[in-house]
């Protein structure tokens, strides 16, 4: 193999030994489980799609399967050969953060006990939409969800405010 300065090394030798390939698969999956824990993907699993058939795979292609049917493809780097650890986690698999300003609107309207569940669900669904539709369309979906979610909350706030005002008015006029 000729090496040229500045060009990345490529390993194209195929593994003939099936047992060696299985060992490699087990090693990579073990390493990826570490990444899984680091990324906090507790409810999913990582499936290695590509990169197993090269002797020293510098890059491996994986599929991150979240809970349900959502799948996300990502590429990770193996730094030092057969039994080495994966040093760079698959950046594409990191959960995307939804627009903060839209989320803030819900913070204003929701009651204390409602924050965790509702906003958490929205963030989770946003991550799945990102994987399926891309960030731009996921952002649009998120803004639309915030709008339709905020409407009944605004209605609730107005009714509550109105009832309090009515109560005050009655109390003032009776006493």
């Amino acid at each position: 193999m000729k090496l040229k300065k500045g060009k990345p090394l490529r390993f194209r030798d195929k593994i003939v030994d099936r047992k060696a390939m299985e060992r490699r698969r087990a090693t990579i999956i073990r390493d990826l489980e570490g990444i899984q824990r680091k990324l906090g993907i507790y409810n999913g699993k990582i499936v290695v799609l590509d990169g197993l058939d090269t002797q020293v795979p510098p890059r491996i292609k994986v599929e991150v399967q979240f809970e349900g049917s959502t799948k996300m493809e990502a590429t990770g780097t193996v730094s030092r050969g057969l039994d080495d650890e994966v040093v760079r986690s698959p950046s594409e698999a990191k959960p995307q953060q939804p627009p903060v300003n839209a989320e803030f609107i819900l913070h204003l309207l929701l009651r204390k006990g409602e924050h965790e569940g509702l906003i958490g669900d929205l963030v989770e669904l946003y991550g799945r939409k990102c994987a399926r539709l891309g960030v731009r369309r996921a952002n649009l979906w998120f803004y639309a969800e915030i709008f339709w979610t905020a409407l009944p909350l605004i209605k609730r706030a107005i009714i509550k405010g109105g009832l309090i005002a009515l109560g005050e008015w009655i109390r003032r006029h009776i006493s």
Partner: protein
Amino acid sequence: MKGLFVMGKSKDYIGELEELVLLAIIKLGTNAYGAAIHEALEDVGRKMAIGALYTTLSRLEDKGFVDSWLGEATAERGGRAKKYFKVLAAGMRVLRETEDARRKLSPELGIALVGGTA
């Protein structure tokens, strides 16, 4: 105060959406939290905002048909906990009653549909 504006015993009845939400919770079992229920409803063609789902869940909780508790926080959810739901005995009873009512009425609906008259 609420009772002044409620006609009859509405607490004992459930709407179509409430029924679907209860059925989705039962189907999901121990994994019944907001996003999962939302997706289960989407799978049967019932699209709605997550806020509308939470309004329904909150209503069902007020009626004593479901119970909720906070679960584990995950990075996927920005470190926020999942809110799990479980159908209570009262919820199961009201579902059975709705199903009975539907069963009693459905033969007539069948005849009407076959006969082509409403």
